[in-house]
């Protein structure tokens, strides 16, 4: 049984295969519109997430399949105290594939241990969100034509940002990669992520508090939100918050072919004035997410 719980469950070759399928779906959508006819996707969302759930549902619908599920724990049996294992044992009798979001870290893995159908982790607390990483990888590939030979900057909250951790893990497997880690001291990348995916693999990296100092070096800029509640005191927050807001002025020193990514939702960390800049990829990125989810569903259902 195939599942996707962690982005590293997929080999580099499998990711290349998914990217190729996603690109083909974009070019020839009619080829795929009946591929999942009579198949059902269950979206088990134990916490609300409009964007990811709609992306999964749109993906299945565009493959000709059907969708069932719930969008928050209150409308599921978990509100009556049912375990994840029991919920999944029941639902795997109704659906051909399950996408699960759960506030508890590791819940999709528990589901995968019980399920009779493939499980896709659609986000488990602050832990993993592999289909977001697939969207990021397709975006980088489509914007740059390659996943090798890139200087990738991560800016903002690198401590709690699960999408940052997963993308670093995924990108660390490609050749000639350099990471630039831009964050306030309070929100630095956790040492285990740095050790496991950067230092152990001897990947060059720079750690800095200043986006201005490094923006000119970057091929990719992955923005995340700096949240006030993450700071120990308001003084530090006020001192640092503006340095992590991307504006057209800050982009003057950036490369002309920089690609700006953001997992969304954004609050104020990217000025809306940047949206018109051709280097802003974040809305294309969400669309790419749907195509990667389509490719993933096809792969896990073995109907490619």
């Amino acid at each position, binding site marked *: 049984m195939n599942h996707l719980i962690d982005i590293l469950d997929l080999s580099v070759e499998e990711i290349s295969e998914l990217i190729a399928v996603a690109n083909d779906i974009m070019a020839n959508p009619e080829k795929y519109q009946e591929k999942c006819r009579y198949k059902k996707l269950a979206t088990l969302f134990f916490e609300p997430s409009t964007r990811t759930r709609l992306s999964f549902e749109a993906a299945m619908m565009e493959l000709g399949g059907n969708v069932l599920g719930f969008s928050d724990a209150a409308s599921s049996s978990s509100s009556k105290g049912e375990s994840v294992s029991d919920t999944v044992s029941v639902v795997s009798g109704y659906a051909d594939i399950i996408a699960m979001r759960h506030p508890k870290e590791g819940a999709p*893995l528990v589901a995968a241990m019980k399920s009779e159908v493939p499980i896709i982790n659609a986000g488990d607390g602050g832990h993993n969100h592999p289909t977001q990483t697939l969207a990021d990888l397709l975006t980088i590939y489509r914007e740059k034509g390659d996943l090798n030979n890139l200087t990738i900057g991560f800016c903002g909250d690198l401590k709690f940002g699960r999408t940052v951790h997963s993308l670093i893990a995924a990108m660390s497997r490609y050749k000639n990669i350099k990471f630039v880690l831009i964050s306030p001291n309070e929100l630095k990348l956790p040492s285990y992520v740095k050790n496991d995916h950067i230092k152990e693999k001897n990947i060059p990296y720079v750690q800095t508090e200043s986006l201005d100092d490094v923006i000119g070096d970057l091929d990719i800029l992955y923005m995340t939100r700096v949240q006030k509640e993450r700071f120990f005191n308001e003084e530090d927050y006020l001192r640092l918050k503006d340095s992590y807001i991307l504006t057209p002025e800050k982009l003057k020193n950036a490369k002309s072919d920089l690609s700006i990514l953001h997992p969304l939702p954004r609050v104020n960390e990217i000025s809306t004035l940047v949206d018109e800049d051709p280097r802003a990829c974040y809305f294309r990125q969400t669309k790419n997410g749907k195509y990667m989810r389509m490719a993933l569903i096809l792969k896990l259902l073995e109907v490619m």
Partner: protein
Amino acid sequence: MHVDSITNGIVIDHITEGKAMQIYDMLSLGSLSCPVAILKNVPSKKMGRKDIIKIDSSIDINLDVLGFVSPNITVAIVRDGKICEKKHIDLPKKLTDIIKCKNPRCITSTEQDIHHIFKLSEGNNPVYRCIYCDTKA
């Protein structure tokens, strides 16, 4: 101080100084009816000081517990007064239901009837991580 040799049983030797009681508790040796000797702060050429546990009965013990609590431990199986088998215990690759995850956001904190599993990471500084949430043991 003298502790008699055992005829049939197990000697757990080269326990890191001060770890014997933890092993005693984790192996539930308190529930045994046979004699159990705990020797603490025993002088050792190799280790300076070490702890030893002698169990005067042939029982099955969870070797993973020993490797996790005190790596480089040795276990000698004694039969008819002679050591018939000696095992050097390395860090086990996987721990099942030996320790619990301390991350309150981990699914193991709420899901009933779930095995608590930790795996030893690869690399230069191996550590045990919860298979569900990756939190360090």
